[in-house]
């Protein structure tokens, strides 16, 4: 399916997204039941282990939309078609949601497990930097400016997201291995049986939810760009009509 035909109708839902949405909802309910009721507490982490069914999906999903944003930005710079821009903004927003939720759920989990909300762990630090990079990108997009200008700048910033994220990750890893011999040793819990199934299911549901959000957000972005075009066309038509009336009335008004 070509990128333009995705938003052929005027809504943002289609049969495919409805199925996807229902699957996500059912999956979320299943994970909630399995994670809160069916599975038992951990020997060491007790009930706080249940947070991994929320936290792990967030962090395992979050790199995918970041990568999509960078790739879509690159393709926009190559092809200059609105679809890639819409995909980039959809991916960036969804990525921001998942990275933000990953950080928050990680902090909530860290408090009972590590005793602190935040620690200068390599993964935490580079994820926080990724969050700020994404916020910068979204700020860039929101600036009031001509659409072509805004899109072009956003595409450059979006394209640089991945190299920057890699450089930040690498430098933070290196920095922290110098400073501490070992990061906080996590309770090396063996995970098996129902817990393992719940965890895998939660990650699958995370991907489904991400895909569902992406498709809808993409369609909204696409419709937004269409309505901007249409608004311009309408304004031009109105001015023309005004001009015609002036000519018709001999410019008496």
């Amino acid at each position, binding site marked *: 399916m070509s990128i333009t035909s995705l938003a052929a109708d005027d809504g943002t839902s289609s049969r495919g997204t409805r199925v996807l949405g229902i699957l996500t909802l059912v999956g979320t309910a299943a994970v909630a039941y399995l994670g809160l009721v069916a599975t038992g507490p951990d020997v060491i982490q007790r009930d706080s282990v249940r947070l991994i069914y929320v936290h792990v999906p967030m962090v395992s999903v979050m790199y995918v939309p970041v990568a999509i944003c960078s790739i879509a930005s690159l393709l926009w710079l190559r092809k200059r078609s609105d679809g890639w821009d819409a995909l980039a903004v959809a991916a960036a927003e969804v990525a921001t949601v998942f990275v933000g939720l990953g950080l928050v759920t990680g902090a909530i989990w860290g408090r009972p497990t590590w005793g602190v909300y935040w620690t200068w762990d390599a993964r935490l630090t580079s994820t926080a930097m990724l969050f700020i*990079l994404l916020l910068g990108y979204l700020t*860039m997009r929101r600036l*009031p400016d001509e659409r072509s200008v805004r899109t072009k*700048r956003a595409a450059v*910033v979006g394209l640089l997201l991945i*190299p*920057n994220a890699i450089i930040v990750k690498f430098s933070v890893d290196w920095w922290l291995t110098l400073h501490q011999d070992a990061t906080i040793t996590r309770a090396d819990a063996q995970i098996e049986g129902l817990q393992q199934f719940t965890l895998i299911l939660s990650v699958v549901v995370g991907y489904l939810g991400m895909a569902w959000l992406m498709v809808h957000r993409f369609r909204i972005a696409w419709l937004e760009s269409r309505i901007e075009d249409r608004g311009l066309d309408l304004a031009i038509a109105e001015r023309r009509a005004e001009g015609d009336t002036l000519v018709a009335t001999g410019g008496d008004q």
Partner: protein
Amino acid sequence: MWDEAVLVAGKDLRIEWRSKVALGQLVPFSLLVLVLFAFALDPERGVLSRVASGLYWVAVLFSTTLAVQRAFSIESADGARDALRLSGLRPASVFVGKAAAIGAQLLVLEFVLGIGIVVLYSLDVAGWPLLAATAVAATLCLASAGTLYGALAAGVRARESLLPLLFLPVVAPVLIGATEAFEAALGGVESEGWPWCGFLVLLGLVYTLLGAQLFGSILEES
């Protein structure tokens, strides 16, 4: 390409030399930051000399955002940006030229600031070659990344606050690398600092290549 870059760099540096805005504001500002750190961290307890490397690079980073903003605001008036675009110079040359001009100013600033921390934070200077190499490598990173993001933020309405938001997270690795190398030179094992210096050189080349590649698409609009 190189003589075009020299042309652009010469133009920017001449403007700076005649207006003395960067020199007259950046240097006092960065020294002020050093003094403010002393107020915040209580010089009596010896904290300052221990964290001097980090403070030095934070001061350089803040000053860089100002230098970059200045480098692009000189082109905001009288359609100078359009004139530059229409001049037929290759975008890569414009990028290298502007980055070189920013880099030259940063090197002067870093030198003055270096004297500042030695005097104000009573620091014993050691490991000169590593310090100098790190300063040059970090300047390459800051100037090239600064030029790239400065051009992106230029002409935008909220550019004063947008540039730091885009630029500072990107150069966080430069802060880490330069601080580690300085600490190794000043108090630690010098051989541990050289890999960080190499990292900065690599980073500077990456930013320069990316900037030279992407500058064309940034320049063509607005």
